[in-house]
């Protein structure tokens, strides 16, 4: 079967926006599982690679694509913001008790490890911050005022959003990269 996957990756100049499109062509009656594709969206190594200006076009079979391991810490697919975020998370692990001068507790290594794993799977790299309530927050904001925030605790993940007209929404999510990426994709108005 000659199914091909074309995987496009494009980043803006600030390296903050990553757009991933998976276009599957030819005689497949069942498309590749979106969940698998979305989790590999920052994958960049390729069988055949061509450069088209700022875009990279990769051709692979779906089987090759989905069997590929996720980018490792030092892998080629790491972009600048992803590296910065991992570094930032490493820094959080060094914060002592009272790191904010107001008596903040330390941030647990388990939580940091969880967040680092998640950072590798996110389609768009967020801004990441510690809080003084044993959580790590990652967030996205657009110029129109819309906003998406996830706050990761040891035992829960809380999502909070504001749309462009100011309507707020809060909910609890499962700690699942696919579900989180779906919310982020929705926020940026794209589907994978």
């Amino acid at each position, binding site marked *: 079967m000659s199914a091909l996957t074309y995987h496009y990756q494009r980043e803006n100049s*600030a390296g*903050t926006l990553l757009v991933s499109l998976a276009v599957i062509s030819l005689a497949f009656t069942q498309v590749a599982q979106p969940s698998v594709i979305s989790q590999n969206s920052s994958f960049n190594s390729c069988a055949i690679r061509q450069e088209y200006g700022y875009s990279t076009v990769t051709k692979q079979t779906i089987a090759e694509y989905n069997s590929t391991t996720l980018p490792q810490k030092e892998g080629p697919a790491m972009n600048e*913001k992803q590296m910065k975020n991992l570094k930032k998370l490493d820094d959080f692990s060094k*914060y002592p008790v009272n*790191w*904010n*001068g*107001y*008596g*903040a*507790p330390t941030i647990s290594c388990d939580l940091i490890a969880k967040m680092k794993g998640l950072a590798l799977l996110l389609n768009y790299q967020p*801004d990441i*911050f*510690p*809080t*003084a*309530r*044993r*959580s790590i*927050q990652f*967030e996205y*904001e657009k110029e129109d005022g819309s*906003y998406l*925030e996830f*706050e990761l605790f040891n035992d829960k993940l*809380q999502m*909070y959003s*504001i749309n462009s007209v100011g309507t*707020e929404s*809060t909910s609890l999510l499962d700690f699942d990269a696919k579900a989180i990426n779906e919310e982020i994709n929705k926020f940026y108005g794209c589907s994978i």
Partner: protein
Amino acid sequence: MDAAFKDEEKLYRALKPKNCFWKSDGSLTSAAFKDSKGLSTDRDGGRDNKVCLEVLNQRFPEQDIVSVQAKSCKEVNACIKYLPEEDNDYHTEIHRSDTEITLSPGQAKHLARCAKIECK
């Protein structure tokens, strides 16, 4: 000092570690206002802005300092509690409500958007 807060009264908060709470677009994250013990601040209590900053700078040397007005807290129904301490007459905490301590994500976001950078 009066336990009531006029709308324009400022509440100061130091941001430590330095540069930790600024987003890539230069704005302040709401994470800076999330504290399980209640958001400690120093009220201006009628002092000049300069004096307030000098005092806070002594406790938090070289750190960023932001302020929010009492009005911004009231807009999201956050509860401002004047809780003077032995070594700080101006200590004030911002709580989610009269009975809950930690600010909601919406309250924290509102304060982050309204916050004024005093010293960076």
